[in-house]
């Protein structure tokens, strides 16, 4: 049983090394190796989650012979175990669902490099989830940034090159801000390990020392990670990147990469700075304002799009706004709602991207609304998956999106003294209506009965995509129906963070 403590470390190393090996394998074998690595990591993460729930304490694992604060450490509690499992599931289903389209989009000679990126990104996501050391976090942020560029650019079209350059610039600015912030934190605390920094910062705040650098570093790290996860004013890279990448890349980018950054931000808030200091800091209001603006403006922009993938991309901006709004509420309930929304949004968004690729495959490989008319009749499973995903995004009962909206509203109402309450509730209502407008349009469009079929339609069975979409639907409904258990896990996990 105690052997399970080694699993996170095994998983990260296995995933990275198999990624390295992938670079010399032919595409077909690279795919198999990559899927094996993801599945193995999924199994390991399930074991870790089970172990942490069973023992109910968080475990520190020393990476090497030297204990902290001299060496590196990773640490896992319930929340880490759950999110690692969750990221592995998302990765597995996204890759499975998009494999067929991937083989069409990417030339055989280059496809092994795609799986290199997939493996390294999964390893980096796991490392970001498990890390107990700020600098380790930064190193794996770098791996994730470069890997994400590779995922966007691998399609090899001019537009995806431009999109990846945009992503690169914004993301590197974010990395720079994070690095500055880390240097400040190291300078004022003298530690890089999360728990030691927290102790030192606690003493510092009590003595009133170095308050200005502390606030600056909180601001820089928040803005840096917000840039990487496409919060509203920093979202300009997102629509192009999601639209012109291949569908698996879009699913991974939106559901795994940006969410891992947000998870790291929450972890830093709890484990590095200390959540009480964060709640009393003014920075959190900035996050709240950006989140609220993003919810409205992202939805408004989504209404005007005539391309399905672009519409989903703008809807992502709105949903990231929800998450930051939850963080910005400044209460434990808000954080919990934000974490739940990370889960429900990831599952729905990955499902929408995979379903959109299924719908466009039967409509002449175009994602324009004019070509997509009636595509749900040609690919039934993708149509149903899109329907479920859209309903979850709007927030209808029985889906994950409903539960997260309920928790957001509850988190706002539970704190009636705050001026944020009324803004949150009104924005939630407006944003839900706007969501309904653009998703209903998409659903009506894809379910429109058409007599004349477009030319060059490919009709083939794609069992892997069908399986992935069905699994996504089941996961979404499980999130909606069995939400109590998951919320309880998240609450316990947040309690372990301190």
């Amino acid at each position: 049983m105690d052997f399970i403590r080694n699993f996170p470390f095994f998983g990260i190393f296995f995933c990275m090394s198999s990624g390295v090996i992938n670079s010399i394998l032919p595409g077909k074998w690279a795919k198999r190796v990559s899927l094996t690595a993801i599945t193995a990591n999924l199994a390991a993460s399930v074991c870790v989650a089970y172990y942490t729930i069973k023992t109910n304490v968080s475990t520190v694992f020393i990476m090497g012979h030297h204990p902290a604060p001299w060496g590196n450490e990773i640490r896992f509690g319930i929340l880490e175990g759950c999110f690692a499992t969750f990221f592995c599931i998302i990765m597995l289903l996204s890759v499975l669902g998009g494999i067929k389209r991937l083989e069409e989009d990417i030339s055989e000679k280059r496809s092994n490099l795609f799986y290199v990126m997939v493996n390294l990104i999964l390893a980096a996501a796991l490392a970001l989830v498990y890390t107990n050391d700020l600098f380790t976090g930064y190193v794996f942020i770098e791996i994730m940034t470069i890997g994400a560029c590779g995922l966007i650019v691998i399609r090899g079209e001019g537009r995806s090159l431009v999109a990846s350059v945009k992503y690169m610039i914004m993301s590197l600015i974010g990395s720079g801000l994070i690095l500055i912030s880390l240097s400040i934190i190291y300078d004022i605390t003298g530690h890089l390990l999360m728990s030691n920094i927290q102790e030192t910062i606690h003493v510092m705040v009590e003595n009133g020392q170095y308050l200005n650098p502390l606030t600056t570093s909180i601001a820089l790290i928040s803005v840096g990670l917000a840039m990487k996860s496409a919060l509203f004013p920093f979202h300009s890279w997102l629509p192009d990147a999601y639209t012109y990448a291949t569908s698996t890349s879009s699913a991974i980018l939106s559901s795994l990469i940006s969410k891992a950054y947000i998870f790291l931000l929450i972890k830093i808030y709890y484990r590095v700075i200390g959540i009480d200091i964060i709640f009393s800091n003014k920075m959190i209001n900035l996050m709240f304002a950006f989140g609220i603006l993003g919810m409205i403006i992202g939805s408004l922009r989504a209404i005007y799009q005539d391309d399905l993938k672009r519409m989903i991309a703008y809807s992502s901006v709105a949903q990231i706004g929800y998450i930051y709004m939850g963080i910005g509420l400044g209460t434990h309930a808000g954080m919990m709602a934000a974490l739940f929304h990370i889960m429900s949004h990831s599952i729905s968004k990955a499902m929408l991207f995979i379903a959109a690729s299924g719908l466009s495959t039967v409509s002449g490989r175009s994602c324009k609304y004019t070509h997509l008319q009636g595509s749900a009749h040609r690919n039934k499973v993708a149509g149903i998956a899109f329907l479920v995903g859209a309903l979850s995004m709007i927030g209808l009962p029985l889906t994950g999106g409903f539960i997260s909206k309920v928790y957001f509203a509850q988190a706002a109402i539970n704190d009636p003294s705050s001026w944020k309450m009324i803004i949150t509730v009104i924005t939630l209502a407006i944003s839900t209506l706007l969501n309904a407008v653009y998703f209903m349009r998409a659903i009506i469009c894809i379910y429109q009965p058409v007599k004349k079929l477009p030319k060059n339609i490919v009709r083939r069975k794609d069992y892997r995509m069908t399986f992935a979409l069905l699994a996504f639907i089941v996961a979404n409904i499980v999130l909606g129906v069995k939400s109590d258990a998951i919320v309880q896990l998240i609450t316990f996990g947040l309690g372990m963070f301190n």
Partner: protein
Amino acid sequence: MSKPRENYNESVWGKFNRWLHGLSPIEYKSSRQWHYTDEELREKFEADIARAHAAQQKEKRLYAKYRYWPDKKGVPLYEKIYRVIAVLVCIAVIISLLIMVAHLPIVGQYDNPVNNEVSQRYIEQGIQETGAVNIVSGMILDYRAFDTFGESHVLFIAASVVFIILRLGIGKEKEIEEEKAREAENDRNFEPANDSILQMITRILVPIIFIFGVYVILFGHLGPGGGFSGGAIIGAGLILYLEAFGFEKIEKFFTLKTYRAISITGLLCYAISKAYSFYTGANGIHSIIPLGTPGHILSSGLILVLNICVGAVVACTMYGFYVLFRKGDF
């Protein structure tokens, strides 16, 4: 048996039923329009035409006025505002960072937060615990080896992405041979093909550079140096050799296969040796790797091996970047 109501058509249900089936009769009411004389009709027609014409003219004027407004005025205005705001935000960030710097601990004070038990132990017990005389090597390859593991994979993934972008024939596999030939032809357009001064100097310098690079890697745990710097030196030597003698000569001993073999062996060696070390360390198992006598060349446990691995990866990555940027393929 009920008989149909006589006034069924007038009842509410009857009306609803007709509306439902779209049968509601068109009701004709007398209208003034039906009784116009030809004169009146013509007048009306001409008035309509005149009005339409006026409206058209107005629309044309408006169109001429506003059609190019966004291009001529709107976009420049937006850009001006955008630039002003961008500069203001930048200045605000710079000022707040400068203010923050004034609040940081003063550099070089003995009681700064960074001078705590962490750096103290690195300095005082570094040699005993890692066996490396060079404390920096001991720190990055033993105390914080996980970070360096990630860092060498950053190099690897960067090289992979450069491969994706710059390798010839992106998207179009068929034309790759032509493109290769064209690139090879263009390769030496702007420089002399076989510069004898360069070649002579390279013949003298490259062996020295390689030997120095190997020295820096191998003595990384004893003195200043290590895998990253030594690898960069060897990579620079390879680039110089390529610059002087061209691809034909260097491909006798360094091809794509060599590149892949070396960098992947390096990374896997790193992963396996460090996995062993982490596993034994975390589970409290005795590690069989001896630390040796500090100061000897074969000492400091895994650090020597790791330095060689990192050096190989760095040298290959540097050379690979150069080749891909220059020719697009090995």
